[in-house]
C-alpha cells in the first residue's frame, strides 16, 4: 500500500465520516462542524488530484466562508437539539428513503457498469496539465473559453450581494408589520 493510496483511503474515510455526520447528527452545530470537516477532506482530496489551486479555493470559500457563516448563524439562533430532526410522516419518509436508495443504486450501478472504461482511462494520468499544478492553464481556459460564464457569474454575485443586503435589512421578510 503506497503512500498516495493510503492517503486516498484515509481522506476518503475522513470525508465520508464528515458527510454522514453532517446528515445524521441531530445538533445542527455539530453537523455544521462536521460539514466543515468534510469540506477540508474534499480539499485534501483535490490535492491528491493535483488541483492545488482549487484545493485552496475550496478551503477559502467553503470551509472559510460558507461553513463559518452556517456556524455563526446557528450560534445566533441558539437552537437546542431538535425533537424531530427527521421527517415524521411514515409514508412520505418511506417514499423519500426509497428515492434516495434508488438514486444510490442507480449511481453505483452506473459507475459499476462503466468502471472498466474508467479503469482504462485512469491508466493514463493527466498529460495536458504538464505534471505540476495547472493553475496557469486553469486561468487561461477560464478567461478564454469560459469567459462568458465568468462574467455571468460576476453579475450573479453582484445581484446576490444586493439581494442579501436587502433581505437582511427587511425586518422579518414579507410579513413585516410594526
Amino acid at each position: 500500500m503506497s503512500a498516495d493510496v493510503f492517503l486516498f483511503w484515509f481522506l476518503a474515510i475522513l470525508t465520508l465520516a464528515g458527510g454522514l455526520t453532517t446528515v445524521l447528527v441531530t445538533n445542527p452545530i455539530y453537523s455544521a462542524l462536521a460539514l466543515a470537516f468534510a469540506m477540508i477532506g474534499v480539499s485534501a482530496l483535490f490535492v491528491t488530484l493535483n488541483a492545488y489551486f482549487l484545493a485552496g479555493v475550496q478551503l477559502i470559500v467553503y470551509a472559510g466562508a460558507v461553513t463559518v457563516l452556517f456556524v455563526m448563524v446557528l450560534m445566533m439562533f441558539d437552537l437546542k437539539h431538535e425533537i424531530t430532526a427527521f421527517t415524521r410522516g411514515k409514508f412520505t419518509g418511506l417514499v423519500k428513503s426509497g428515492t434516495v436508495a434508488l438514486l444510490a443504486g442507480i449511481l453505483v450501478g452506473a459507475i459499476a457498469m462503466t468502471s472498466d472504461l474508467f479503469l482504462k482511462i485512469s491508466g493514463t494520468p493527466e498529460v495536458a496539465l504538464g505534471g505540476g499544478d495547472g493553475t496557469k492553464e486553469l486561468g487561461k481556459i477560464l478567461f478564454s473559453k469560459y469567459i462568458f460564464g465568468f462574467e455571468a457569474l460576476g453579475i450573479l454575485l453582484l445581484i446576490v450581494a444586493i439581494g442579501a443586503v436587502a433581505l437582511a435589512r427587511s425586518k422579518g421578510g414579507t410579513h413585516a408589520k410594526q
Partner: protein
Amino acid sequence: MTQQTLMAILILSPLVGFLINGVRYKKHSAEVAGAIATGAAVISFISALIMVIDLVGMPAEERRITVQFFDWITIEKLKISAGFTLDQISAIMVLVVTGVGSLIHLFSIGYMRHDKGVAKYFSYLNLFLFNMLLLVLGDNLLVMFVGWEGVGLCSYLLIGFWFTDKEKAAAGMKAFITNRVGDAAFLLGMFVLFLTFGTLNFQEINHMVPLTSELMWMAPITLGTLFLFIGATGKSAQIPLYVWLPDAMAGPTPVSALIHAATMVTAGVYMIIRLNPLFMMAPNTMMVIAIIGGLTAVLAATIGMTQWDIKKVLAYSTVSQLGYMFLACGVGAFGAALFHLMTHAFFKALMFLGSGSVIHAMHEEQDIRKMGGLKKHLPYTHATFFVGWLAIIGAPLLSGFFSKDEILWQSFHSPRGHVLFWIMGVLGAVMTAFYMTRLMALTFWGKSRVSKDVHPHESPMIMLIPLIVLAILSAVGGWIGIPHIISEILPGQPGNILETWLEPLIKAVPGTEAGEPSQEWALMATSVTLAAISAFVAFHFYVKDPAKPKKVAESLGKVYEVVYNKYFVDEAYFGWIINPLVKLSKGIWYYVDVNFIDKTTYVVADLVRGGGQFVRGMQNGNIQQYAMYIGLGVVAMMTYVLMR
C-alpha cells in the same frame, strides 16, 4: 444633381408633404396646407421635368433612367429591388400625373377653402400622388402593385372624405371592395407571371417575351395577361367592375378630376401598355380586351345620355373613354391608347374642374335640371368648358380629335382590329357627342332654371388658372400625335412626334401594312360628321325645344327606364352576388364558428382545468416533496440513459 437624388425628390416630396400635413392636421389652415401640398406636387413635377429633359437628351435606343434604391425582398429565387425606371412611357405618364396633379392641387385650394378637414384632404391628395408615382415609376410588378393598392386606399379615403354622410361612406366602401376583386386577379396574374418568367421586372419580362413563342408558354401567358386585365378592369372601371366609378363621384370634385378621371383610373391602361410585348404574345387576351373595351364604351355612353347629375354624366363619359383606351390596347394600338390617355387626362380633368367650378358657383347643386343659362354668370368657366367639350366630342384639330381618330383608324386598320370595333367606336363617339352637348346645353345655354335663392358667381382666380392651363393643354395637347395623312398636308410635315418617341418601346402589330390614305380620310370624315350631327341634334333638343327629349323618352318607354336605371347592374350584383355571400357567411359563422370551433375550445379548456386541479394536489408546498420529485426525475432519466 444625380439621377438618384432627382428620382428620390420626385418620389418622396409628396410623401413629405403628406407627413407634414398629416401630422396635427387640425392645426393647419387651408392656405398653409394647400401651399405645402401644392409645393410638394410642383417640386416633384419640376424634378420630373428635369429628368425627362435628360431623357430627351439621350440617344433614342437607351432612353431609360433606372434607379435601384435598395434590395427590398430577397428570397432565394425571388429578388425584388425598390427600383424605379423612367422610360418613354413612364415619362409621359409622370408628366401627366405630376402636372395635372399640381394644377388640381392648386384648384383644390380654392375649392376646399371652407372645409374643416382641409389639411387632411391635402395630405390624402399628396399620399395619392406618392402612390401614383410608385405605380408609374416602379420597375417591377410588385412596386407597381404597392402603388396600385396605395392609390386604391387613397381613392377610398377621398371618396369617403365626407364620411359623416352615410351614402358617401358607402360609396367609398363600394369602390374599395370592387377594387379588391380586381386586385386579387392582379395578384394571381403576378403569380402566374412569376411562375412563368421567374421575375417580376418589366425589362426582364419584356426581354424574355420573344423567347416565349418557341418555349410554348402561350397558355400561362394568356392566363396571366387575362388575370392582369381583370385587375385592370377593376382599377379602370370596365365591364363588369365599372359600377364603383359613378358612385365615386361622392368625393370632392377635384378628387374626381384627379383620381377618377385623369390618373388613377388609367392605371390599368398604363399597366397594359407597360407590358405591351407580353400582351402582344396573347392574341386571345387582346381580343377579350378589345371587346370589353368597345362594349364598355358604348354601354357607358348610353347610360351617360340619361343621367341628370352633372358629375355622373362626366363619370360615365370617363368610363366610356377608358373603354376607348382598352379598345385601342385590344387592337394593339398601344401608342394610341397612351395618346388618348394623355389627352383624356387633359380635357376630362378640365371638365371635372369646370363642373366643380359650376357646383361651387351653384352652392353644391349638381342636378343639371336646376341649371341652365350659366354662361353669363361664369364666362371663364364656360369658355374653358367649351374647349373641353370641343375636345371630347372630337372637333377637328383639338386634342380629342387626334387621339380618338387614331384609335378608330387603328381599330379598323390593325390586323387585330375589325370593322365591328370601328362601328362600336363610332357609336361611342356619336353618343359622346350627344350627351356632352346635352350637358353643355343644360348647364350653360338655354334659359336659366336656377332657383331664386341661388346666386351663381364666378370662381376665384386660383380656381380659374388651372382651368385655363388645362384648356390650353386640351386644345393643343393633341398636336404631338398628328397622323401622317394630316401632317403631310401641313407646312413642314411635323410628323407623328409621339409615335417616333414611343417607337423603341411600342412596336406596331406584326403584319400591319401601310394604310390607304383615302380610306383613312373617309373614316375620319364619317366619324366627324356623325359626331357633328348628333351634337347638333342634342343642341336642337335641349336648347330649341326642351319638350322634345321627354317625348322621345316616353316613345322609347321601357328601354329608357332600363338605361336610366343603369341596366339594373347594381341591383343584379346585389341580388345574385352580395346577398348570397352575406347569407353564406352568416351560416358559416353560426354553424362552424359558434357551434363547432368554440365548443371544442371549451372542451379543451375544461380538460386543462381538470388537469390543473389534479396537479395542484401534488403542489402542497412541502419543499422536500418537490426535491423528491426532482430526485425521481433524475432516477428516471439515468435509468433511461443506462438501459438505452
